[in-house]
């Protein structure tokens, strides 16, 4: 075992248990939309959201990170993974929405560590969070790549 090893490479393929349900609230959607400057009223006006065919107000495209990061956190703080959080940099993020996240949803996430690659002493870890409602409807697939820089 090299002392500067940034992450346990044996974690590729690991699947974590489902996260506790995340209750998607109207006011949280509004707050997040304001914070990213998303002005579409579908994030704040229920009547408009319903007129467009949604059950309630819907979240902006990157809102899913709130739930995905709860999934990722399980891996990042896993003592067996051995990650030094202070060396972690977000490299890449992707969302595939199966349908918009909607106020009233209760969403659980299942995290899979898709790959762990060592590149010049740095570790590149790709994780995938499959987000679905507690009723089992697929909502979003969030994929994240982080780089954990090697120690000096």
């Amino acid at each position, binding site marked *: 075992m090299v002392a500067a090893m940034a992450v346990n490479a044996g974690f590729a393929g690991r699947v974590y248990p489902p996260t506790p349900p995340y209750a998607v609230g109207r006011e*949280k959607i509004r*707050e*997040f939309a*304001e*914070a*990213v*400057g*998303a*002005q*579409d009223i*579908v*994030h704040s006006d229920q009547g*408009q959201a319903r*007129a*467009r065919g*949604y059950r309630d107000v*819907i979240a*902006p*495209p*990157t809102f899913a*990170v*709130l739930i995905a*990061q709860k999934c990722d956190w399980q891996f990042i703080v896993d003592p067996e993974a051995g990650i030094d959080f*202070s060396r972690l*940099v*977000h*490299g*890449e*993020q*992707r*969302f*595939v*929405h199966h349908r*918009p996240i909607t106020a009233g949803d209760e969403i659980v996430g299942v995290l899979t560590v898709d790959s762990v690659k060592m590149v010049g002493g740095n570790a590149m870890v790709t994780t995938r969070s499959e987000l679905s409602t507690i009723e089992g409807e697929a909502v979003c697939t969030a*994929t994240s790549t982080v780089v954990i820089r090697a120690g000096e």
Partner: protein
Amino acid sequence: MTNAVLSVSDVEVGQSLPSRTVHINRATLVQYTGASLDRNPIHWDERFARSVGLPDVIAHGMFTMGAAVNVVSDWVGDAGRVVEYGTRFTKPVVVPYEIGADVEVTGVVTALDTQARRATVALTATCGTDKVLGRAVAVIVLD
């Protein structure tokens, strides 16, 4: 219907989306810190940021990603039509106290699938001479 969502016939490959400048200051970052629960002090505490070798506080990559896609949502006419969105974080957006930072966001249609009613938009986000997002791509569903 009061909102107008773009139809397949409104869109063609090579079409440019209306661009926009996103101004970022400390208030922007504190607001996003609160909303996103990403409370890493590199985004709001310049002493901390400098102590880990950064020139100043930097914007959350996820803030820039979230703000950039508004160009697409507003153009298509409904944020719920953005069905895929991904990017790389290529350079940090440094946000000095006095002047903040401006991120220029542009978009161009790179593919159109008339059968599936889907369009692909490539976004660019630049701060000064730095490309801050790499391979930023959104897929939208049209009417």
